[in-house]
């Protein structure tokens, strides 16, 4: 099996697999990190910030700041997409590059993702398109007219052949057309790839609603892809471990890495570090904790913080996006507010996907934990409270900020959920402009990308003190840590473990005691943009043999092997001639037609055993050969046929039978019988078979 890693960042995933003459992609993520390279003008105190950033030499000041936003896709241009049979998606966050593949290449294969994954991806795309649009509006005015004309030219649309991995955004139509090509699957549903050569099955991953681990089987071998695993108890179905066990190869990419010491946004981080120490900024940041379960409980701090702020008349902004996290947060915050008798305070969900997100969240109990399902079964109520909140009007769904009731931003005690792509454009930036100077308001950041982006806000504050909002950083990353993944790997017992190289380093950093005896035979670290080979054992293929064939077989005990086979009882064997029929990549064995004789007969026999010259001579004499003489022969004098298989010295046995002559050269493991008389050859062979085992 050949495994090529097409991504080069830990942020997105994309692997190309060649396995059993089949080519498929695992995930096709799109990195929105490059959005952060833009510095729109109208950010609070953007001008100063911009200048400061220029000073510290970040990428923000590069030409990108004056250009159209671009996104980093994986190295798809290096792949002959026409030869790809299928794409398997593990999570909605890992399929945003799909339109580039389905709409802008010659890809003609099938795409499989769970049904909620497709729906959530649709919402994420809507938000991405809106964010892109907002960023363009923010930057367009800085671009010369001529340049703008060139960029709005459709010829400038993403180019398939471009060697660069940076692409402009796809259109909404392309996105819709692309997602309509995805086949939605259920957990434990088998799908066949390349006409049945491989069977792929999705099992619950536990990270998001619809997250999947994929098990790909073919030719008796099993490949497992864990792209979106989580060990945290959330509301979506939890990780289904058992089907992932005993894989021949396990590709693991779902691990929360500790932040690298030198981020590529290093300078901004430095600013951030400095700001954290600055007492004027009320930073409620949680110190990073190792276990994801702890990180998850840290997430419970959010409702409390929100309640405190709202009680004091402050406003709360939560840019969390439309995934399933937003519903968990809405549920928690609404019930915390209710407990504090603040249920009259309005909640707003401002996103182009808000309506869709709420509608979708109400109908997916099949993809959630038994507790969520019971809410539906027993009470006929939706699995998330957000459905009822929206129906009662406590949660208002707005596609953009213009729909916000007058005064909502200024009355105080308002909670707004927005898309999570950037704090620099769109509704998030608009709200920040309104609340940024208000120290009683709170900004809650859960997205890792936004946490990065917040450094900008902090820089703003540092420079001109214009950003005074409280900031609660509570990055929600539910993927297991390297430390937590170890016991899981020990349980899963893969034969070969394949991991991205940076993840491999993180695993190596885990104390040796925790790493001990993983039980894998081999580990392969895959550097970005590199291809590795994973050797898989050649496994026997289970084939259905018809009962008619089974009845023909007469098993006989195989002599001389029982003791050699670790005392597991004797082996029984039989020669079998059968017809093998091939259909959809699977096989069946049937009895050969009785009338049909093989056109090219073979007499394959397995001959083995201990040969003694005396015994052979005795057998010959019993067959009434006239004269039997034996003489020793040196190795190099033996006939070629024997010398092919052994260098040993041997013996020559000569016999006569009437006026016919026969000669037998023999060594311990080879015999060459020469006679011009066919019957004599046969007799010499039969005498040999009295001394050896023949199958």
């Amino acid at each position: 099996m050949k495994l090529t890693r097409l991504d080069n960042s830990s942020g997105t995933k994309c692997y190309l697999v060649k396995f059993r003459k089949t080519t498929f992609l695992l995930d096709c993520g799109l990195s929105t990190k490059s959005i952060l390279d833009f510095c729109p003008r109208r950010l609070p105190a953007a001008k100063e910030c911009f200048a400061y950033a220029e000073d510290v030499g970040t990428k923000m000041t590069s030409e990108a700041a004056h250009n159209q936003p671009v996104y980093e896709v994986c190295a798809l241009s290096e792949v002959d997409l026409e030869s790809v049979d299928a794409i398997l998606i593990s999570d909605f966050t890992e399929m945003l590059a799909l339109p580039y593949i389905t709409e802008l290449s010659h890809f003609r294969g099938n795409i499989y993702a769970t049904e909620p994954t497709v729906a959530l991806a649709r919402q994420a795309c809507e938000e991405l398109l809106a964010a892109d649009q907002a960023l363009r509006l923010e930057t367009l005015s800085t671009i010369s007219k001529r340049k703008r004309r060139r960029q709005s030219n459709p010829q400038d649309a993403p180019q398939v052949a471009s060697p660069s991995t940076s692409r402009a955004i796809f259109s909404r139509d392309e996105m819709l057309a692309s997602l309509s090509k995805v086949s939605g699957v259920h957990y434990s549903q088998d799908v066949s790839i390349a006409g049945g050569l491989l069977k792929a099955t999705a099992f619950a991953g536990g990270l998001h609603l619809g997250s999947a681990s994929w098990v790909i089987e073919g030719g008796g071998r099993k490949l497992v892809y864990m792209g979106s695993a989580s060990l945290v108890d959330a509301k979506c179905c939890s990780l289904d471990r058992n089907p992932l066990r005993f894989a021949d190869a396990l590709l693991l990419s779902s691990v929360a890495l500790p932040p690298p010491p030198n981020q590529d946004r290093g300078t901004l981080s430095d600013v951030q570090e400095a700001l954290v120490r600055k007492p004027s900024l009320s930073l409620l940041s949680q110190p990073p904790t190792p276990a994801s379960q702890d990180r998850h409980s840290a997430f419970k701090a959010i409702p409390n913080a929100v309640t405190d702020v709202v009680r004091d008349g402050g406003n709360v902004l939560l840019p969390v996006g439309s995934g399933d996290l937003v519903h968990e947060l809405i549920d928690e915050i609404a019930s915390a507010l209710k407990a504090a008798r603040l249920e009259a305070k309005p909640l707003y969900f401002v996103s182009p996907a808000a309506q869709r997100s709420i509608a979708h969240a109400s109908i997916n109990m099949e993809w959630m934990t038994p507790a969520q399902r019971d809410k539906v079964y027993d009470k006929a109520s939706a699995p998330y409270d957000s459905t009822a909140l929206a129906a009662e009007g406590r949660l208002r769904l707005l596609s953009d900020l213009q729909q916000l009731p007058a005064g909502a931003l200024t009355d105080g005690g308002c909670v707004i959920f927005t898309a999570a792509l950037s704090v620099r454009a769109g509704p998030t930036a608009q709200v920040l402009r309104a609340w940024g100077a208000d120290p009683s308001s709170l900004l809650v950041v859960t997205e890792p990308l936004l946490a990065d982006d917040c450094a900008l806000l902090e820089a703003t504050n540092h420079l001109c003190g214009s950003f005074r909002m409280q900031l609660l950083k509570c990055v929600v990353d539910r993927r297991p840590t390297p430390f937590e993944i170890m016991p899981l790997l020990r349980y899963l017992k893969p034969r070969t473990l394949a991991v991205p190289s940076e993840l491999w380093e993180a695993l190596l950093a885990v104390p040796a005691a925790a790493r001990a005896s993983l039980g894998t035979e081999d580990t392969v670290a895959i550097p970005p943009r590199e291809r590795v080979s994973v050797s898989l054992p050649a496994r026997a293929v289970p084939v259905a043999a018809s009962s008619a064939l089974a009845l023909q077989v007469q098993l006989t005990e195989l002599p001389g092997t029982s003791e050699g086979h670790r005392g597991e009882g004797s082996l029984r064997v039989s020669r079998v001639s059968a017809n093998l029929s091939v259909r959809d990549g699977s096989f069946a064995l049937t009895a050969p037609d009785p009338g049909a004789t093989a056109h090219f007969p073979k007499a394959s026999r397995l001959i083995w055993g201990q040969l003694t010259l005396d015994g052979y001579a005795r057998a010959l004499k019993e067959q009434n050969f006239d004269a039997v003489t034996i003489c020793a022969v040196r190795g190099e004098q033996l006939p070629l046929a024997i010398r092919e298989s052994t260098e040993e010295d041997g013996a020559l046995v000569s016999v006569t039978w009437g006026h016919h002559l026969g000669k037998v050269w023999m060594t311990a493991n080879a015999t060459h019988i020469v006679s011009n008389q066919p019957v004599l050859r046969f007799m010499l062979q039969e005498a040999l078979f009295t001394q050896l085992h023949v199958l």
Partner: protein
Amino acid sequence: MDIRVLPLGAGQDVGRSCVLVTLAGRTIMFDCGIHMGYNDERRFPDFKYISRSGNYTEAIDAVIITHFHLDHCGALAYFTEVHGYNGPIFMTHPTKALIPLMLEDFRKVLVDRLGENEHFNSRHIKNCMKKVIALDLMETYKVDDELEIRAYYAGHVLGAAMFYARVGDQEFGPSVVYTGDYNMTPDRHLGAAQIDRCRPDLLITESTYATTIRDSKRARERDFVQQVHECIKDGGKVLIPVFALGRAQELAILVEEYWERVGLTAPIYFSAGLTAKANLYYKLLINWTSAQVKASHERGTNMFDFRHVAQFERAHIEKPGPCVLFASPGMLHAGMSLEVFKSWGSGEKNMVILPGYCVAGTVGAKLIAGHRGPLEIDKRCTVDVQCKVRYLSFSAHADAKGIMQLIRQAAPKNVLLVHGEKAKMDFLKAKISSTLGIPCYNPPNGEVVRVAAACAVKVHVSQTLLQRSLAEHASASITTTTYLGKRTRNPSDEQVGEPVDVVPVEGVLVSGGGSALQLKLLDNTEVAPAFGIVPHALSFGCTLRCCRSTSQQRAQDGAREIGKLKMEADASAALDASVEAVRSWLPVEPDYEQGVLRVGSFEARFNVVGSSQLAGTGGEPEISPVPSGSPATCSRGDQQDANAGGEYIEVACQWKADDAPMAERAISLLRQSISDSL
């Protein structure tokens, strides 16, 4: 290995569906329904057939419920809580959500309205549902190590599923599909039934409409709303007896749309309780409806939010003015629909629309049969039937065409009919046997049918053997080349699923070695290493000498030189002829160059030996170390000639034991053809 089928209900009948299937030692109960037409013990399936001991948990490995209709699930709580079945129960998520409503409603109708003894109570229903394992569509669920089940979309009602069950691995174990009720055409809120080519050994299908071919659904829908409208225009009341779930929602969508479009204001009612709660569930189970309903839900409108529909109250029965009422149950045998009918049935302006199947003996069935005038409903009540009665076959069952279509899709080896009337079944049975050539059964309740299941033995074939066999016999066929990596892309649908190629394999079957019985089919070359055997190589050699006849030789005595030349020409012709003879017999092209013929391990070296050469190299070809002076057979058996130093052709042969039969035949061919041409 037989599959044993025993219908406990719905054998040559509609109602109390319950079919017991035993496959390779696993017994599954499909459905556990009640019969609406009976009030005595015939209402329930005949559980005593299951086991004499009465220990049903031991006798049954799984109970599978296909959908929430009472004739499929009505006896479930009774079976688990009263008869004590304690094993796993499977159904889809919507069925799990909706069955408690149905059972509770049924229980209330029996106890509160009809005053019967209750067979099970509310607590029974709750406890029963706790044992239910809910499944998703297409999910492959392993009940235990061997038994595997899977649900397919069946249309019919929300959450209705057809179930596939198999014991053992795919292609090895016996398998069965039980359809429950299904609908092959999509309707207002549900998609059409879908199944893949799973080739079960047995397909057990419903046959409610075994003899009907229905007209277009659209026409029936138009007909329905127009009839309702006409009745309303005349100031009449329309009673539509429906199952609380399913039909009610579909027809309500129709009526809502029509009211909206035409601008009608007459009230539409749903009978209280059940339907209201049912609508809540429908809103949460949109994933199980049709693509259109799902799409409009994504756009923010839930089709099950009925704006024109109001809750019906008993006071509305006597309220004057036109209205439309959806009331359960659907067969007018009890409950609110019957109560309303008692009051409205005698009004000439009123109308009863029966949109579904009615079991014989119910008021609904009598109306469909055309009853007019006084109709005794029970001892205390007789209704003078004067209202208009319409029967619209809206029932979401497959018709004859649909049933045949499903059978073609699933490609079963046998078909068994249940859930239909015997006469209609017999008709369909004949049709299935004749047009599809598939054996078909329709046993009555309590009669066991045994169906032979092709039982396959699982053999683990080594990759080496597989690859070698396929490579040796690689033909132009698609599948084989697919396997070898030379495939064409996207094979068309006809090619998929058809047996494409057959190649012969020769190997060694090995069993034993440990407790687990595993059969392995190995390539010959793999056997020795697998068992630590050092194989003994066996090879053979011989030398043919073919001489000219003595007379020919004598004639040439005087001109030895010329003769030698002639001899060489003859010899080369003889060689060519012999090679040709071997070649024409062999299926493969032999390798022949520089006087050496090779096929497999067989090798023949030709050598023309004249008398002048005898003293030289010709006597001892290296490959066949026959000691000099040894007797060599001459083709004419004329040994002296050869020894006397005449001219002859010598063919030194050697081969390995594997190729012995071929070698022996080739040698005799060579000898024959050389001597013939000399």
